[in-house]
């Protein structure tokens, strides 16, 4: 077969960058220009980075270059001796009292108190991170001190109790990890936590001086211990319990999301102006209680030549949301097996790209979902925002009066999804809005192309239950027969069990009091329930790995019980 192509008769038109209309604000960020919200280490971040670099270079230098060790030891000894020369009986008494802050019993009381409070408030994730940070700190410090084998200071009498080698200081590391753990697991972020961080800093600095004064440790021993403890706790809590995903709050509901004020708020406004050519007049967080996976916002946008002033809906995604999604999916895979695609997202960019794709796909197919306005880059690879249509004046279906027209729209919506080979996977009252007599479908992040038949059947059953909550099972069933066969409906209610029913829908059913699932099952032909548990080699292996990790953690706690008890 001849695959040669004739050269085009007409030369292709050369693309010329569109300068845009005069005064247009949409612009491409030139190479080298900072993004709307550049990722920058804060002052504290720079400080910790510097300290870690300092101690790492010190450790490597001491291990590999004996002459450097001598130099470093002399410097450390001189500082220790200098402080010890300030000794007076009264100052020593004060120092001994202050040194009690780093005593084993002080640290134990702080740790057990924190553990008790975390258990009391059922803040399990913070509890595990707290325990893990302590174990890691204590383990590394013990082994590192044995490896480095640095004696206590010479030349001066030691005035306070000590245990083991000096570098890094175990009491300083233990106190630091405990105090920072308390700040991040018990103290509500804001002014209180900021003050506590400063207080921790002051306490640790004072203790470094006190322990050097008492001759228990050199400045490097105490300093390294404190910095290591702080670094482990900070990393663990910021990484594993970011506040906008796992908030520390003493009120009901999910209160905290990404802060959209300050520099981030300004960055959002300028990014939307430059990237979508929209002038944001107001940014308001909404629906926080029902959203753990992103930070939802309502934007008030200025009028343009084509459209009046209006609202838009936006969702802000950060890396922590990707991590939370991974844990969520791991949990589902362990609990139920490969019910459906539980593959994790690898980046925030993939997150927003997928949601943008799902929005545009549903729009293309004519489904009543929000129109996508695009993705906005806030901080490259770290924070993105997806902007979409806001159904102004719409109310959640659970608060709306619905008639047979709305019921039909809901059922047709599922039929359309089925016909197009799609599943929404999160049909619940919060995702179905009614404006006038129109039904709207929102939150399309979980939309799946070519899902399992089970998943599609679940969508139908959930939609029927949602509609029946505002009417009755008989009406919904009768209307459903216009678009679905009896067997299809029976399949839906055979599949809609346990995990398949969203939490919000389950709560609404309980509050309603009618046993709608049973009513639908009685109306539909009898059908054997569809098994939810799926077993695969992946699930078995994952379960085994998690079980082993859990056992190791328990053994670690038991073997290091002395750390707590």
């Amino acid at each position: 077969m001849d695959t040669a192509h004739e050269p085009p008769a007409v030369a292709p038109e050369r693309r010329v960058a569109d300068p845009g209309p005069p005064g247009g604000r949409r612009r491409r960020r030139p190479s080298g220009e900072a993004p709307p919200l550049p990722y920058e280490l804060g002052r504290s971040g720079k400080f910790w980075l510097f300290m870690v670099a300092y101690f790492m270079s010190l450790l490597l230098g001491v291990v590999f270059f004996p002459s450097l060790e001598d130099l470093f030891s002399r410097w450390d000894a001189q500082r220790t001796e200098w402080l010890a020369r300030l000794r007076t009986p009264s100052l020593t008494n004060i120092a001994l009292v202050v040194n009690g802050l780093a005593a084993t019993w002080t640290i134990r009381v702080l740790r057990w108190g924190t553990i008790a409070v975390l258990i009391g408030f059922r803040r399990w994730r913070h509890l595990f991170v707290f325990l893990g940070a302590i174990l890691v700190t204590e383990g590394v410090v013990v082994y590192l001190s044995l490896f480095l084998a640095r004696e206590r200071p010479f030349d001066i009498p030691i005035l306070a109790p000590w245990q083991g080698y000096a570098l890094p200081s175990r009491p300083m590391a233990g106190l630091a990890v405990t105090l920072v753990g308390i700040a991040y697991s018990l103290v509500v972020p804001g002014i209180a936590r900021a003050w506590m961080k400063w207080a921790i800093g002051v306490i640790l600095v004072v203790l470094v001086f006190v322990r050097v004064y008492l001759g228990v440790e050199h400045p490097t021993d105490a300093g390294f211990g404190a910095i290591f403890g702080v670094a482990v706790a900070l990393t663990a809590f910021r990484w594993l319990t970011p506040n906008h995903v796992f908030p520390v709050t003493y009120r009901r509901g999910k209160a905290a999301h990404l802060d959209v004020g300050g520099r981030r708020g300004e960055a959002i406004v300028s990014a939307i102006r430059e990237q979508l050519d929209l002038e944001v007049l107001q940014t308001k967080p909404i629906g926080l209680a029902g959203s753990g996976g992103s930070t939802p916002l309502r934007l008030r946008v200025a009028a343009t030549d084509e459209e009046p002033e209006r609202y838009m809906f936006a969702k802000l995604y950060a890396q922590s949301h990707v991590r939370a999604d991974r844990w969520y999916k791991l949990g589902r895979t362990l609990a139920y097996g490969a019910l459906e695609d539980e593959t994790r997202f690898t980046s925030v960019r993939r997150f927003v790209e997928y949601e943008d794709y799902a929005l545009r796909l549903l729009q293309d197919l004519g489904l009543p979902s929000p129109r996508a306005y695009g993705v906005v880059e806030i901080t490259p690879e770290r924070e993105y925002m997806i902007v979409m249509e806001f159904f102004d004046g719409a109310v959640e279906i659970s608060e709306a009066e619905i008639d047979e027209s709305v019921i039909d729209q809901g059922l047709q919506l599922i039929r359309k999804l089925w016909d197009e080979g799609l599943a929404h996977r999160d049909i619940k009252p919060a995702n179905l809005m009614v404006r006038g007599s129109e039904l709207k479908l929102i939150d399309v992040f979980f939309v799946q192309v070519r899902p399992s038949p089970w998943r599609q059947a679940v969508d139908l059953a959930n939609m029927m239950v949602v509609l029946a909550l505002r009417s009755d099972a008989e009406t919904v069933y009768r209307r459903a027969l216009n678009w679905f066969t009896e067997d299809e409906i029976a399949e839906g209610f055979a599949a809609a069990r346990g995990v398949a029913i969203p939490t919000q829908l389950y709560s609404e059913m309980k509050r309603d009091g009618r046993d709608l699932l049973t009513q639908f099952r009685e109306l539909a032909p009898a059908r054997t329930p569809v098994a939810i548990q799926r077993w695969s080699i992946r699930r078995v292996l994952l379960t085994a790995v998690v079980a082993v990790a859990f056992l190791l953690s328990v053994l670690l706690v038991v073997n290091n019980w002395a750390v707590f008890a």
Partner: protein
Amino acid sequence: MRRLAILPLAGFVLAACTATLNSDEEVLCSPIGERTVLILAAQAVPSATLMPCMSDFPAGWSFAGSDIRSGRARFWLESDRAGVRAIEVELTRTCDVSGLDEAPNAGGELDVRVYVEPLTFQPYAANRYFTFTGGCAIYRYRFTPTDEWPNLALEANDALTFLPRSTLVAHVEAERDQTLCGASAPPCVVGD
């Protein structure tokens, strides 16, 4: 997969670190090694003029670990026949030897008095106390059941001995140019 590749590396680092811990040189009387625990023990009990240590390690015996804190220093010896922590050596400032029988000092160290508690055999268990100026060393024998216990006890007794603190003071002075405060040392730079 890239993350999984870190695991063997982490294992190697951990193994390397572990390999450097608990080496026999830590409790050898001579030569005083880079990784000796004797200096830290001397800091723990600064009044003690003698430090318990091993003259050598008989075949099958090895150093099993230490726990040194202010006021007390302990280390353990293990044997392929007498078991893990077959002997615990503890150094403190003082110890209670009232009611114990004094025994001849087979080691011959000057100014050391030896006391023994009644023994038990099969398994072999014994406590021996050595008192000297500024300190007391206790050897606790806790063998797993073995017919070889007499030979093993004899081997250990021959290897366990004392190092004058002055030797450690001189070592620190020579190697670190610093003073190991306490017994047998010149006055420290800063008094308490």
